[in-house]
Protein backbone atom coordinates (compact mmCIF):
# COMPACT_ATOMS: atom_id res chain seq x y z
CA UNK A 1 0.00 0.00 0.00
CA UNK A 2 2.56 2.56 1.05
CA UNK A 3 5.10 3.68 -1.50
CA UNK A 4 7.43 5.37 0.93
CA UNK A 5 8.00 5.82 4.63
CA UNK A 6 10.37 8.16 6.39
CA UNK A 7 11.68 8.63 9.90
CA UNK A 8 12.64 12.21 10.65
CA UNK A 9 14.54 13.23 13.73
CA UNK A 10 14.04 15.95 16.30
CA UNK A 11 15.92 18.53 14.24
CA UNK A 12 14.11 17.63 11.01
CA UNK A 13 17.06 15.69 9.64
CA UNK A 14 15.95 12.49 7.93
CA UNK A 15 17.05 9.38 9.80
CA UNK A 16 15.64 6.94 7.32
CA UNK A 17 13.80 7.17 4.03
CA UNK A 18 12.70 3.96 2.43
CA UNK A 19 10.61 3.30 -0.60
CA UNK A 20 9.55 0.33 -2.58
CA UNK A 21 9.53 -0.11 -6.30
CA UNK A 22 12.42 1.14 -8.34
CA UNK A 23 14.83 1.47 -5.49
CA UNK A 24 18.00 2.26 -7.35
CA UNK A 25 16.66 5.01 -9.55
CA UNK A 26 17.88 8.44 -8.50
CA UNK A 27 14.71 10.08 -9.75
CA UNK A 28 12.60 8.04 -7.40
CA UNK A 29 14.90 8.79 -4.54
CA UNK A 30 14.67 12.50 -5.20
CA UNK A 31 10.93 12.56 -5.55
CA UNK A 32 10.61 10.61 -2.32
CA UNK A 33 12.75 13.09 -0.45
CA UNK A 34 10.80 15.94 -1.92
CA UNK A 35 7.46 14.40 -0.96
CA UNK A 36 8.56 13.78 2.58
CA UNK A 37 9.94 17.25 3.02
CA UNK A 38 6.83 18.98 1.76
CA UNK A 39 4.99 17.17 4.53
CA UNK A 40 7.20 18.63 7.24
CA UNK A 41 5.65 22.09 7.13
CA UNK A 42 2.20 20.61 7.45
CA UNK A 43 3.40 18.51 10.37
CA UNK A 44 4.81 21.47 12.24
CA UNK A 45 1.62 23.40 11.64
CA UNK A 46 -0.47 20.62 13.16
CA UNK A 47 1.77 20.45 16.20
CA UNK A 48 1.68 24.18 16.85
CA UNK A 49 -2.08 24.43 16.44
CA UNK A 50 -2.63 21.49 18.77
CA UNK A 51 -0.49 23.19 21.40
CA UNK A 52 -2.36 26.47 21.30
CA UNK A 53 -5.79 24.88 21.39
CA UNK A 54 -4.90 22.87 24.47
CA UNK A 55 -3.74 26.09 26.09
CA UNK A 56 -7.05 27.73 25.29
CA UNK A 57 -8.85 24.82 26.96
CA UNK A 58 -10.72 23.48 24.00
CA UNK A 59 -13.45 20.92 24.49
CA UNK A 60 -12.43 17.67 26.02
CA UNK A 61 -13.09 15.55 22.97
CA UNK A 62 -11.05 17.82 20.75
CA UNK A 63 -8.21 17.85 23.22
CA UNK A 64 -7.82 14.11 23.45
CA UNK A 65 -7.94 13.98 19.69
CA UNK A 66 -5.21 16.57 19.36
CA UNK A 67 -3.03 14.81 21.85
CA UNK A 68 -3.11 11.68 19.75
CA UNK A 69 0.25 10.75 18.26
CA UNK A 70 -1.33 10.02 14.91
CA UNK A 71 -1.95 13.21 12.98
CA UNK A 72 -3.90 11.85 10.05
CA UNK A 73 -3.76 12.98 6.46
CA UNK A 74 -1.37 15.88 6.19
CA UNK A 75 -1.24 16.65 2.57
CA UNK A 76 -2.46 15.20 -0.63
CA UNK A 77 -1.36 15.74 -4.17
CA UNK A 78 -2.63 14.40 -7.47
CA UNK A 79 -0.52 11.31 -7.15
CA UNK A 80 0.20 10.86 -3.48
CA UNK A 81 -1.31 11.08 -0.02
CA UNK A 82 0.92 11.87 2.92
CA UNK A 83 0.15 10.79 6.48
CA UNK A 84 1.99 11.91 9.59
CA UNK A 85 2.70 10.66 13.11
CA UNK A 86 4.75 12.39 15.77
CA UNK A 87 6.01 10.53 18.81
CA UNK A 88 6.38 11.97 22.28
CA UNK A 89 10.09 12.15 21.61
CA UNK A 90 9.49 14.44 18.59
CA UNK A 91 10.40 11.82 16.06
CA UNK A 92 8.30 12.33 12.96
CA UNK A 93 7.09 9.35 11.01
CA UNK A 94 5.76 10.00 7.53
CA UNK A 95 3.97 7.54 5.32
CA UNK A 96 3.23 8.20 1.67
CA UNK A 97 0.66 6.26 -0.31
CA UNK A 98 -0.02 6.46 -3.95
CA UNK A 99 -3.50 7.69 -4.81
CA UNK A 100 -3.27 6.49 -8.40
CA UNK A 101 -2.74 2.79 -7.79
CA UNK A 102 -5.89 0.77 -7.06
CA UNK A 103 -4.66 -0.51 -3.69
CA UNK A 104 -3.66 2.89 -2.44
CA UNK A 105 -6.54 5.04 -3.56
CA UNK A 106 -9.17 3.76 -1.15
CA UNK A 107 -7.05 3.16 1.86
CA UNK A 108 -8.69 3.50 5.22
CA UNK A 109 -7.52 5.75 8.02
CA UNK A 110 -7.40 2.90 10.52
CA UNK A 111 -5.02 0.97 8.29
CA UNK A 112 -2.61 3.85 8.10
CA UNK A 113 -2.85 4.30 11.83
CA UNK A 114 -1.89 0.70 12.55
CA UNK A 115 0.90 0.81 10.00
CA UNK A 116 2.37 3.90 11.62
CA UNK A 117 2.05 2.39 15.07
CA UNK A 118 3.95 -0.64 13.90
CA UNK A 119 6.57 1.57 12.33
CA UNK A 120 6.93 3.32 15.67
CA UNK A 121 7.47 -0.03 17.36
CA UNK A 122 10.10 -0.94 14.78
CA UNK A 123 11.79 2.40 15.31
CA UNK A 124 11.87 1.89 19.08
CA UNK A 125 13.51 -1.47 18.54
CA UNK A 126 16.07 0.02 16.16
CA UNK A 127 16.92 2.72 18.71
CA UNK A 128 17.55 0.09 21.35
CA UNK A 129 20.38 -1.31 19.29
CA UNK A 130 23.46 -0.36 21.32
CA UNK A 131 25.41 0.42 18.15
CA UNK A 132 22.97 3.11 17.19
CA UNK A 133 23.79 6.56 18.50
CA UNK A 134 20.93 8.98 19.06
CA UNK A 135 20.50 11.34 16.14
CA UNK A 136 22.35 9.15 13.67
CA UNK A 137 20.86 7.77 10.50
CA UNK A 138 19.38 4.32 10.88
CA UNK A 139 21.58 1.97 8.91
CA UNK A 140 20.27 -1.29 10.33
CA UNK A 141 19.54 -3.77 7.56
CA UNK A 142 17.08 -5.59 9.79
CA UNK A 143 15.09 -2.40 10.30
CA UNK A 144 15.15 -1.75 6.57
CA UNK A 145 13.81 -5.24 5.84
CA UNK A 146 11.07 -4.99 8.42
CA UNK A 147 9.96 -1.62 7.12
CA UNK A 148 9.89 -2.89 3.53
CA UNK A 149 7.79 -5.80 4.71
CA UNK A 150 5.45 -3.44 6.46
CA UNK A 151 5.03 -1.42 3.30
CA UNK A 152 4.52 -4.41 1.05
CA UNK A 153 2.25 -6.95 2.59
CA UNK A 154 0.41 -5.63 5.57
CA UNK A 155 -3.04 -4.02 5.46
Amino acid at each position, binding site marked *: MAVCVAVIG*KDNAPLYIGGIGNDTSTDNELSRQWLVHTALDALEERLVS*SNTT*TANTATNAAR*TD*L*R*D*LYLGLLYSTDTHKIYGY*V*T*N*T*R*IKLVLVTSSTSPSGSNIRDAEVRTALRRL*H*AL*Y*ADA*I*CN*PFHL*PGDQITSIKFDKQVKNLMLNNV
Partner: protein
Amino acid sequence: MADDIVFELLHSEIINYALEQVKDVTKTKDTDLSVVEYIGFAAGYKIMERLTREWPRFKDELDTMKFICTDFWTCIYKKQIDNLRTNHQGVYVLQDNAFRFLTNFSNGQQYLEFAPRYVAYTCGLIRGGLANLCINSVVTAEVQAMPSCKFHIHVQRT
Protein backbone atom coordinates in the same frame (compact mmCIF):
# COMPACT_ATOMS: atom_id res chain seq x y z
CA MET B 1 11.58 -11.10 42.00
CA ALA B 2 14.70 -12.52 40.47
CA ASP B 3 15.11 -10.01 37.66
CA ASP B 4 15.23 -7.14 40.14
CA ILE B 5 18.24 -8.52 41.90
CA VAL B 6 20.02 -9.11 38.61
CA PHE B 7 19.69 -5.44 37.74
CA GLU B 8 20.87 -4.39 41.20
CA LEU B 9 23.94 -6.62 41.15
CA LEU B 10 24.88 -5.58 37.63
CA HIS B 11 24.53 -1.97 38.64
CA SER B 12 26.86 -2.32 41.61
CA GLU B 13 29.38 -4.24 39.54
CA ILE B 14 29.41 -1.55 36.88
CA ILE B 15 30.19 1.00 39.56
CA ASN B 16 32.97 -1.11 41.02
CA TYR B 17 34.42 -1.57 37.55
CA ALA B 18 34.24 2.13 36.70
CA LEU B 19 35.97 3.02 39.96
CA GLU B 20 38.73 0.49 39.31
CA GLN B 21 39.33 1.90 35.83
CA VAL B 22 39.62 5.42 37.15
CA LYS B 23 42.01 4.34 39.86
CA ASP B 24 44.22 2.55 37.31
CA VAL B 25 44.46 5.56 35.05
CA THR B 26 44.94 8.40 37.49
CA LYS B 27 46.45 6.59 40.51
CA THR B 28 44.49 8.83 42.81
CA LYS B 29 41.54 8.22 45.07
CA ASP B 30 39.26 10.44 43.00
CA THR B 31 35.90 9.05 42.12
CA ASP B 32 34.91 9.93 38.60
CA LEU B 33 31.51 8.57 37.79
CA SER B 34 30.89 10.30 34.48
CA VAL B 35 31.11 6.95 32.71
CA VAL B 36 28.37 5.51 34.88
CA GLU B 37 26.32 8.64 34.37
CA TYR B 38 26.70 8.27 30.61
CA ILE B 39 25.61 4.64 30.72
CA GLY B 40 22.52 5.80 32.54
CA PHE B 41 21.96 8.51 29.97
CA ALA B 42 22.02 6.05 27.08
CA ALA B 43 19.68 3.68 28.89
CA GLY B 44 17.24 6.43 29.82
CA TYR B 45 17.20 7.71 26.27
CA LYS B 46 16.28 4.32 24.87
CA ILE B 47 13.80 3.35 27.56
CA MET B 48 11.90 6.57 26.99
CA GLU B 49 11.20 5.75 23.37
CA ARG B 50 9.49 2.53 24.43
CA LEU B 51 7.68 3.81 27.48
CA THR B 52 5.99 6.72 25.79
CA ARG B 53 4.77 4.66 22.87
CA GLU B 54 1.26 4.21 24.17
CA TRP B 55 1.01 7.65 25.72
CA PRO B 56 -0.84 10.67 24.48
CA ARG B 57 1.29 13.71 23.81
CA PHE B 58 2.52 15.51 26.90
CA LYS B 59 0.91 18.88 27.57
CA ASP B 60 3.87 20.63 29.15
CA GLU B 61 6.99 20.19 31.20
CA LEU B 62 5.14 19.48 34.43
CA ASP B 63 3.17 16.77 32.70
CA THR B 64 6.45 15.23 31.61
CA MET B 65 7.85 15.36 35.14
CA LYS B 66 4.76 13.65 36.47
CA PHE B 67 5.36 10.92 33.94
CA ILE B 68 8.94 10.54 35.20
CA CYS B 69 7.70 10.32 38.78
CA THR B 70 5.03 7.75 38.14
CA ASP B 71 5.44 5.52 35.12
CA PHE B 72 9.14 5.89 34.46
CA TRP B 73 10.03 5.31 38.11
CA THR B 74 7.63 2.39 38.44
CA CYS B 75 9.12 0.78 35.38
CA ILE B 76 12.65 0.91 36.79
CA TYR B 77 12.32 0.94 40.57
CA LYS B 78 8.89 -0.68 41.06
CA LYS B 79 7.64 2.26 43.05
CA GLN B 80 6.65 5.86 42.49
CA ILE B 81 8.50 8.97 43.55
CA ASP B 82 7.24 9.99 46.97
CA ASN B 83 7.38 13.73 46.56
CA LEU B 84 7.67 16.09 43.61
CA ARG B 85 8.33 19.76 44.18
CA THR B 86 8.96 22.56 41.73
CA ASN B 87 9.45 26.32 41.72
CA HIS B 88 7.72 26.54 38.31
CA GLN B 89 10.89 28.03 36.86
CA GLY B 90 12.59 24.91 35.71
CA VAL B 91 13.77 23.42 38.98
CA TYR B 92 12.22 20.15 40.08
CA VAL B 93 13.02 18.13 43.17
CA LEU B 94 12.10 14.47 43.17
CA GLN B 95 12.26 12.77 46.51
CA ASP B 96 12.36 9.03 46.95
CA ASN B 97 12.12 7.95 50.58
CA ALA B 98 13.29 4.42 49.92
CA PHE B 99 15.60 4.55 46.95
CA ARG B 100 16.16 1.01 45.79
CA PHE B 101 19.94 1.08 45.40
CA LEU B 102 20.34 2.41 48.93
CA THR B 103 17.76 0.44 50.90
CA ASN B 104 20.14 -2.46 51.54
CA PHE B 105 22.98 -0.35 52.88
CA SER B 106 21.83 1.36 56.02
CA ASN B 107 19.08 3.21 57.73
CA GLY B 108 20.98 6.32 58.67
CA GLN B 109 24.39 7.91 58.36
CA GLN B 110 26.56 4.82 57.99
CA TYR B 111 28.28 4.48 54.58
CA LEU B 112 26.99 7.92 53.68
CA GLU B 113 30.24 8.83 51.91
CA PHE B 114 29.68 6.05 49.38
CA ALA B 115 26.12 6.99 48.57
CA PRO B 116 26.97 9.32 45.67
CA ARG B 117 28.35 6.37 43.69
CA TYR B 118 25.01 4.67 43.72
CA VAL B 119 22.97 7.60 42.51
CA ALA B 120 25.09 8.61 39.51
CA TYR B 121 23.51 6.05 37.21
CA THR B 122 20.03 7.22 38.10
CA CYS B 123 20.95 10.86 37.47
CA GLY B 124 22.00 9.85 33.98
CA LEU B 125 18.85 7.83 33.56
CA ILE B 126 16.65 10.82 34.30
CA ARG B 127 18.75 13.13 32.14
CA GLY B 128 18.65 10.75 29.20
CA GLY B 129 14.93 10.25 29.50
CA LEU B 130 14.33 13.98 29.52
CA ALA B 131 16.78 14.58 26.70
CA ASN B 132 14.80 12.27 24.46
CA LEU B 133 11.69 14.27 25.32
CA CYS B 134 13.54 17.43 24.20
CA ILE B 135 14.19 18.76 27.70
CA ASN B 136 17.85 19.50 28.30
CA SER B 137 18.67 19.37 31.96
CA VAL B 138 21.28 18.95 34.63
CA VAL B 139 20.42 16.33 37.20
CA THR B 140 22.12 16.13 40.57
CA ALA B 141 21.37 13.99 43.57
CA GLU B 142 21.54 14.59 47.26
CA VAL B 143 21.55 11.99 50.02
CA GLN B 144 21.20 13.25 53.55
CA ALA B 145 20.20 10.08 55.30
CA MET B 146 19.93 6.71 53.65
CA PRO B 147 17.81 5.31 52.12
CA SER B 148 16.12 8.56 51.20
CA CYS B 149 17.38 10.43 48.16
CA LYS B 150 16.56 13.70 46.42
CA PHE B 151 17.10 14.33 42.72
CA HIS B 152 17.38 17.93 41.61
CA ILE B 153 16.53 18.60 38.00
CA HIS B 154 17.55 21.96 36.54
CA VAL B 155 16.03 22.45 33.14
CA GLN B 156 18.35 24.34 30.79
CA ARG B 157 16.57 26.99 28.81
CA THR B 158 18.14 28.39 25.70
